[in-house]
């Protein structure tokens, strides 16, 4: 077992990137991702990490540099948040279509306006359809572990896709947690050297990024979608291998006291741990409630999610983002569509809360539970619409 220390999660994530023997790091500072980048710069300048640290002049260039480096065969890492993600948006879509392995930590943060440096999932939802593999981590240990996972999945020849790790900004990035580092041999056995499918090199010239006429474009998109869908096999294998290597197990969807639940909370990201405490409290009061946490966001784990929901008749979906003018928060919208075809379609109460990092405590989730049950009592299906929780005036 590697050393176990209390360390800020951002620094731990950077340490994981270092242990993964990254080749190129190109990142632009943005709160709350800065500590990750700063620590990597320190590791490079102290000679502890042999990598090219490229201090780019914008996030758009950060991901463009990563594209070039990955195309040339290097192991590549970047990180950003909110506005930075928005600025590199064009390239986000391009690198997945070009099947370039890149690992990115997204320190989740509100999208402007107004400017907010604090945590929510609006940036996550803005690139929902970008074609990357996307996973949520809920605590510092998961962040460390998933850096290894991300490189392995991204670079696996059957996948060859960029991978994004969603980590709640400030709430995870800036807290000190106990993290068990991996040992060098564990990293070596889990994460092989990168062997690119194609690399820019004169010995084997290839052209990457050719343009697509209408007569071929649709086929390239179908191919890209299939690649993302089929990456699930490697994702599951990578988690299984992780359990073998370090003894911690992860799954696309994880449940807590969910099997016999009548009502289920559904969360993504760090809310999960808080909700689990609310579940315990409510259970102690006799409520048949549980929690299902979505870890794998793309490719969406349809089977696992439906199985986790099981026979539960009522879902309380917690969204940390808004879909303006849409039918609720983005997660609720997705899940409704996942469950639409189910014979036993559960009812759904959707709460949007925690925007810009506003604290949502155990008490609040308990209150949401009671509010949801009250709405479920009403037979009016419109009572199932979404609600903002904790917004003054609402």
């Amino acid at each position, binding site marked *: 077992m590697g050393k176990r220390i209390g360390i800020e999660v951002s620094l731990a994530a950077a340490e994981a990137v270092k242990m993964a023997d990254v080749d190129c790091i190109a990142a632009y500072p943005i709160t709350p991702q800065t500590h990750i980048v700063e620590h990597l710069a320190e590791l490079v300048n102290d000679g502890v990490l042999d990598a090219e640290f490229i201090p780019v002049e914008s996030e758009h260039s950060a991901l463009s540099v990563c594209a070039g480096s990955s195309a040339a065969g290097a192991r590549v890492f970047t990180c950003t948040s909110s506005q930075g993600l928005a600025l590199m948006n064009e390239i986000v879509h391009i690198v997945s279509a070009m099947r370039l392995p890149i690992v990115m930590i997204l320190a989740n943060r509100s999208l402007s306006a107004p400017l907010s440096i604090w945590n929510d999932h609006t940036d996550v939802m803005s690139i929902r359809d970008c074609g990357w593999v996307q996973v949520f981590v809920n605590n510092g240990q998961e962040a460390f572990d998933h850096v290894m996972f991300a490189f392995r999945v991204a670079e696996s020849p059957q996948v060859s896709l960029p991978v994004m790790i969603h980590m709640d900004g400030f709430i995870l990035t800036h807290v000190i947690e106990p993290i068990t580092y991996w040992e060098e041999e564990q990293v070596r056995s889990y994460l092989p050297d990168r062997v690119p499918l194609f690399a820019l090199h004169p010995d084997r010239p*290839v052209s990457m990024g050719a343009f697509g006429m209408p007569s071929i474009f649709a086929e390239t998109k179908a*191919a890209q979608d299939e690649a993302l869908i089929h990456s699930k096999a490697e994702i599951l294998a990578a988690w299984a291998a992780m359990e073998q290597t370090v003894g911690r197990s992860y799954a696309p969807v994880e449940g807590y006291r969910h099997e016999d639940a009548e009502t289920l909370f559904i969360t993504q990201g760090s809310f999960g741990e808080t909700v689990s405490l609310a579940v315990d409290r409510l259970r102690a009061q006799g409520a048949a409630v549980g929690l299902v946490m979505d870890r794998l966001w793309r490719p969406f784990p349809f089977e696992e999610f439906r199985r986790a929901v099981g026979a539960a008749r009522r879902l309380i979906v917690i969204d940390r983002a808004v879909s303006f003018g849409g039918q609720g928060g983005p997660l609720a919208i997705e899940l409704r569509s996942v469950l639409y075809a189910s014979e036993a379609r559960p009812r759904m109460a959707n709460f949007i809360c925690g925007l810009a990092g506003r604290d949502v405590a155990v008490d609040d989730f308990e209150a949401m539970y009671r509010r949801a049950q009250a709405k479920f009592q009403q037979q009016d299906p419109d009572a199932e619409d979404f609600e903002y929780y904790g917004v003054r005036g609402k």
Partner: protein
Amino acid sequence: MERAKTKEDLTWQEIEVGGVVTRPGNAAEYETGTWRSAHPVVDFDRCVKCGVCYIFCPDAAIYENAAGYFVADLYYCKGCGICPHECPTGAIHMEEETE
């Protein structure tokens, strides 16, 4: 050389990962010669084999034949007219396509 499948033939499974093109220069199969309405004709008595036409052809369509004269490859020649214009001895003139 086996003719590459055109974009109209490829199924999604046949497209290389990420749309990568692995056969360098395979676009050389494309016959740009069908574009032209005139082609260059060389007067070999005037040609001094200097290679000016060769260097100025944007399509690399001029090559040195076995006798050392520079002639246009009509598979590619777009008939732009640069070579007669630049030829220092006036050895080239353009002739209209008859078809």
